[in-house]
């Protein structure tokens, strides 16, 4: 990364915090997902997705379901949306969502012993937690980002001049910027480029474990992080990437140049502010990049868009099989509690995934 001090100080502070986050929460989640994969078995996970009727569009279905029940998710209304403390609750919720998804996977696998009410309740409360920190929540990720936009605007408007260009474009730059390797699209780009070099093979349920061993875990890393264990999706992306390996190099160079340009611009703007305002600006920019990372990396790999999201959706779908899908969440839950029986298997604590 071609940034020289002291010109790029706002982004340097941001990069330090991003590194901590990548080493911290991102690593915890990756460790948890590796543990779950080892416990469930790579082939079993691939076959689960292969059999899933929702494998092509579970993200869209999940989003539709969230919106349909948007007023119903059990939540704390009208709490305070501030950055302080957000990362602790985001971490706790993201880890809980993943662990619940892993438990649901094993519970759903119980067949006739599966307890529809407990599965549904666990999925609803898990999504309620994720929803609370997420895009549509009054105290969630998007709301905090919007607040930061306002804070940064208020710092910059008094000093803004025509020669600084568009303020909106500058804000877009701050709220898009992540160094190469910290965004999901750059990581998927790098991973597939590396896979194309190591192996030219498409994946199937029959060969996935062997190819994963040959590629030293690269195949499963992509399946786990970016394909919800779908070989179809993996193979489709592989074909596209095979034909664009040269472009990957160009895209990386362009993105790095773009990031450096924004970093330099932000540093120049900081130099126009009074010291205490420059300090607030640097802090706000660092917070913006951390939230970008949550939005564009952690959410992509570990939220409802991931394999555990697919599993959560299966849990919601199970409820619909036993109740009227037109009902509210509360009505479905009440019906399941009253008309289905408790299963002994659902109290098996060994099914809670803990590394």
């Amino acid at each position, binding site marked *: 990364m071609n940034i020289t001090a002291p010109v790029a100080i706002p982004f340097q502070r941001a990069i330090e915090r991003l590194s901590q986050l990548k080493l911290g929460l991102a690593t915890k989640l990756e460790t948890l997902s590796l543990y779950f994969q080892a416990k469930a078995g790579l082939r079993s996970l691939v076959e689960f997705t292969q059999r899933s009727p929702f494998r*092509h*569009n579970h*993200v*869209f279905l999940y*989003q539709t379901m969230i919106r349909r029940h948007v007023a119903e998710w059990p939540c704390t209304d009208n709490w305070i949306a501030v950055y302080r403390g957000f990362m602790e609750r985001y971490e706790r919720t993201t880890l809980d969502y993943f662990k619940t998804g892993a438990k649901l996977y094993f519970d759903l696998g119980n067949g006739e012993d599966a307890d529809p009410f407990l599965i549904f309740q666990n999925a609803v409360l898990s999504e309620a937690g994720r929803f609370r920190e997420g*895009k549509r929540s009054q105290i969630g*990720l*998007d709301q905090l*980002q919007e607040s930061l*936009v306002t804070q940064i605007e208020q710092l910059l408007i008094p000093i803004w001049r025509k020669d600084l260009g*568009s303020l*909106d*474009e500058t804000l*877009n*730059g701050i*709220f*898009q910027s*992540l160094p190469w390797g910290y*965004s*999901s*699209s*750059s990581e*998927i*780009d790098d991973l*597939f480029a590396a896979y194309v070099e190591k192996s030219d093979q498409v994946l199937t349920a029959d060969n996935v474990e062997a190819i994963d061993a040959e590629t030293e875990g690269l195949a499963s890393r992509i399946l786990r992080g*970016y*394909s919800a264990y779908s070989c179809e*999706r993996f193979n*489709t*992306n592989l074909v*596209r*990437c095979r034909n*664009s390996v040269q*472009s990957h190099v160009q*895209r990386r160079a*362009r*993105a790095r140049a*773009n990031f450096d340009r924004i970093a330099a611009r932000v540093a120049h703007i900081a130099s126009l502010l009074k010291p205490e305002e420059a300090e607030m600006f640097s802090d706000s920019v660092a917070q913006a990049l951390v939230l*970008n990372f949550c*939005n*564009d990396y952690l959410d*992509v790999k570990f939220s409802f*868009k991931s394999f555990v999201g697919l599993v959560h959706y299966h849990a919601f779908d199970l409820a619909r099989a036993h109740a009227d899908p037109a009902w509210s969440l509360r009505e479905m839950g009440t019906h399941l509690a009253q008309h289905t029986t408790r299963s002994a298997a659902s109290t098996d604590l060994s099914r809670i995934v803990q590394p």
Partner: protein
Amino acid sequence: MLSTSLSGRIASIGGGAVTGFARIVNSEADLGRIQPGDIMVAPATDISFATTMVLCAGFVTETGGRFAHAAIFAREHGLPCITDVADARKLIPDGAQITLDPELNLISPA
């Protein structure tokens, strides 16, 4: 042919206005229809679209704002994007040649 001009929220200026063939993408299953230089028209995008999105000249989505996946992707890759264009998939015919001008916030017939 697109019969009227549309607008939404400017999510990314990219390199400015682009002209290309509109490609309606309802789900991941439609991604195989995208050709280099097409303008993707979708309800929204997500990471599963990423390896195809790099082929596109720009994006129009029906939902989302500054922090939507399409907006972030477009800015990262220097491509134009307009989000929150209601009924884009109904109003923009598949295969129509269109101009996406993010500086004017306009999607118009080419």
